Structures are given as structure tokens and as C-alpha cells.
């Protein structure tokens, strides 16, 4: 599903954000990506959706090397990946409903399919009563859940979640994790960057740890920190 080989990213300002990271994520896996602040987690996810281009190394999604994509192909790549952005990236002038439906309009979904699906997803994340307000009228955690709703509404093959519980209380976080597990069980591959020790330790899934851009650990069933 997702293969990185010696993936390196050096930003224009000289920062080495990823340093020869190699990893393989199979279809249907659920992977936690952990590491200190600034370790390179978001950068890795940004490379997967081609928001950034790698400095060197290979990254391929679904057997396709995404280093050489035409503009149109980039759009198609992004359509089969759902992303919960660390900073949400909601369209400020669109309501919650419109933000979610936009992702479906983009792929040309029929109008009559859109409405029920959007409401279903908003219900899943507990925001049915906020459907018609603007993001600026939401609390931090609510915005985060809108972003989640948008990410899953198209039932993507791959779901990238960047700190999806950062602004959620423990109870809501667990609800969201149950939702993600459910989605994972239905076949969606999930890569989730997180700092939430409770969740990582609780679920005992595969954990990949980054440290200053280097892959330092890849445990099939592990906790947030190395067992001590």
C-alpha cells in the first residue's frame, strides 16, 4: 500500500526533516507514527499526499511511484487518501456540511448520494447539530472532528491522521479511535501520527518511531515508548 525507500526530505531552509526513512505499510494495516515534536511525522505524511516532494529516495502509494506524477494524477492520488491535517485545513468560508460535501463534489459524486452520506458521517463524529455553522464558530475539538469527517467521507483506501485526538478529551478520543478501528476493519489502511500515549499503549498496534528524521523503531505490536 505504502512503501518508502531511503526517503529523505531537506527543506529549502536546510532543515533535514526526514533522513533515509524506509518502511512498508501493507493494505489494511493500522500504524502509529510516534516521535518527539519536530521529529518529521507530518513531513512524512505530507510526502505521501505529495504536498511536499522528496529530496531523495522513493515513495510509492498503491504500487505507484509518486515522484513522477502529472498535475491531474496528483489530484487522483489525493482522492484515494483521506487526511486529517494537524491544523485541520478547513475552508473558512464554507459551513461544516459544505466542507465535508466538498470532498465528495471533487470526485464527482452524484448530488443525491452526497446529502445522506455527509449527514451520516457528521453523525458519526458527533457534529450533526453543527452542520450549518462556519468553522470559525466551532471549538478546537469540533474543527478537528470536521476534518476527520471530511477525511473518511469518501471511504478512502488510505487514511492519514496527523494528531487526530490532539484537541479532544479522553472520552471523545476513544470514540474517535473506535471509529477509526471500525474503518480499519472495513479495509482502510490507517497511518496515524500521534502523541497520545494512552491510546498507543491501549491499542497495541504496529508502532513506528521517528527521532530527528530517522526511523528508530518499528514494533509490530507495541506501546508509545520502548518497553523499559
Amino acid at each position, binding site marked *: 500500500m505504502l512503501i518508502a525507500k531511503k526517503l529523505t526530505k531537506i527543506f529549502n531552509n536546510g532543515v533535514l526533516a526526514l533522513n533515509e526513512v524506509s518502511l512498508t505499510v501493507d493494505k489494511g494495516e493500522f500504524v502509529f507514527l510516534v516521535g518527539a515534536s519536530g521529529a518529521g511525522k507530518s513531513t512524512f505524511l505530507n510526502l505521501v*499526499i505529495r*504536498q511536499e516532494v522528496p529530496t531523495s529516495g522513493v515513495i510509492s502509494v498503491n504500487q505507484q511511484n509518486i515522484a513522477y506524477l502529472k*498535475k*491531474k494524477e496528483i*489530484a*487522483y*492520488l*489525493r*482522492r484515494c*487518501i483521506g*487526511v486529517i*491535517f494537524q491544523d485541520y*485545513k*478547513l*475552508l*473558512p*468560508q*464554507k459551513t461544516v456540511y459544505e466542507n465535508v460535501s*466538498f*470532498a465528495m*463534489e*471533487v*470526485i464527482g459524486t452524484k*448530488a443525491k448520494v452526497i446529502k445522506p452520506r455527509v449527514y451520516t458521517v457528521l453523525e458519526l463524529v458527533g457534529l450533526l447539530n453543527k452542520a450549518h455553522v462556519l468553522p470559525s464558530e466551532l471549538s478546537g475539538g469540533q474543527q478537528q472532528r470536521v476534518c476527520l469527517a*471530511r477525511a473518511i467521507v469518501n471511504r478512502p483506501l488510505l487514511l492519514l491522521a496527523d494528531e487526530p485526538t490532539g484537541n479532544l478529551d479522553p472520552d471523545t478520543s476513544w470514540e474517535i479511535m473506535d471509529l477509526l478501528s471500525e474503518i480499519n476493519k472495513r479495509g482502510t489502511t490507517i497511518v496515524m501520527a500521534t502523541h497520545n500515549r494512552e491510546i498507543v499503549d491501549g491499542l497495541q498496534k504496529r508502532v513506528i518511531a521517528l527521532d530527528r528524521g530517522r526511523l528508530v523503531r518499528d514494533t509490530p505490536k507495541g506501546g508509545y515508548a520502548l518497553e523499559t
Partner: protein
Amino acid sequence: MKPRSFFYFLHEALLGLVRNRLMSLTAMGIITVGLFLFGLFLLVTANLQYFTDLAWGEIELRVFLKPAVTNQAAIGKQLSALPGVQSVTYISKAEGAVSLEKMFNNNHLFLDEENPLPDAFNLTLTKTADPEELTRLVTAIPGIDEIVFGQDFVKFMEIAIRLVMVAGLILLFLTGLAVLYIVVNTIQLTVYARRKEIEIMKLVGATDAFVRWPFLLEGIILGLLGAGLALLLLREGYTYLVFRLQHYRRFLPLLTGKEINLTLTVSLLSMGLFFGGFGSHISLKRYLKV
């Protein structure tokens, strides 16, 4: 683009305009004012053209014949055939005397048998006439004694008219360019203010076309609305002006009627449409590179 898509894009465009109404109104205002200015100068130029057309008809060359000449009719034909000559009027020595006496307040100047004036022709010119060339050709005709300007200010008028026409067109062209620049860049500012949105749309998997169309339509709508408003102001204002100045119509012939309205409408609306669309197009190019 499927039919449903067009309405989707139009809907998005209208939503965009309404949700960013403060910015939209500001941009529309700028476009209105820019196109108003252009339309104003279009009206002024068109009227100057009209005015100089009328003035051109007033320019006359007077061609005097040698006293001995008898084949006036043949010479008249020759003159008519020259390039740049619009009409030829024969003025006999008697008529010449009458008009001269009129000029001097109807004092009886000459006894009939003593009339010292030569026979003459008055020539009016076409707009494309080249007076220097014409003088050469006319004096080459046998029987022509001398050619003079029928009125003192013919030379002056000729240059003034040419100048006004050329200068008017140049100014209009410059104004058009300036308005193009202003409209396009105003639209650019509105797109610039929303570049983050464009980035987000692309990250969610929108193709360039999908992002572009609503913005393009927004630009076009802004341009057309601005143009429409400018048009309204100009037409009402101009009609009012013509009405107020109707007493001066003799000295100040103003263009009225359908033709000028049509020119104004077509040029402003097409500028609004084209500039607005073009403005969004080129600024989108920059921000679609995400």
C-alpha cells in the same frame, strides 16, 4: 464540463462572492470606476470624432481660374475627379462679389461691369484628403490661376482635427490599457487573499479545473457587474448631460441615439467579461501550482 457541473460551479462562484462580500464589493467598485473612466473617455472621443467630422465638412479650398478661361465645366469635372475632393461648387465672379459684399455688411462694393474678381471653385475635402498633394494636382490643371484656402483657419483646422483624432484615440487606448491593468490586478488581489483556500481545495483532491472554474466565474461576474454598473452610470449621466445641453446644440453637436449606446454597451461589457476572466485566469495560474 457536464451541465450539472456548470451550475455547481456557478453556484460556488456566487457563494464565493456573497461569503466574501466585503472584498467582492470593493473589487467591483474598483472595476466599476475603472470602466466608468474608460467609458467616459470613449464618449468624449466619440464626440470629438463626430465634432471633427462636422468641422471637416467646413474646410474649403477655393480655386481661382485665370481670367481667360472659358471651359469652366470641364475644369469642374477634372477637380471632382481628384482624390480627396468631396464636392465642387462653381462660384461665378458675380456670386463671388455678392458673397464678398455680404461679408462687408452689404455695402455695394463693385459696379457690375467692373467686377474684378475671377471665377472660382469651392472644394470641400474628404477626411482622407492630403492637402499638399491636392494643391500640387490642382495647380497642374491648365486654367487654374491660384489655389487659396477658402477660410483663414483651414490649415489650422486641418492640423487641429488630425491631432484631436489621433490624440483622442491614443488617450483612449492608454486608458483602456490602464483599465485592463487595474481590473486584472484587482481580481488578482482578491485571489491572493484566498490563496489558502485554493491550497486546501487542491489538498483534498480537486483538479485544477475544479478549483479554477468558480474563481473564473467569480472574476467574470465581478467584471460584468462592474461593467454593468459603470454602463448604467454613464448612460444615465450622458442622457442627462445631453438633455441639459440641448440649448447649445448648434454649437455643441453631441452624439445621441442607438449607435453610441451600442458602442458603449458592447465595449464595456466585453471589457468587463474579458478583463475579469483574464484577471482570475492569470492569478490562478500562480496559486494552482500547489
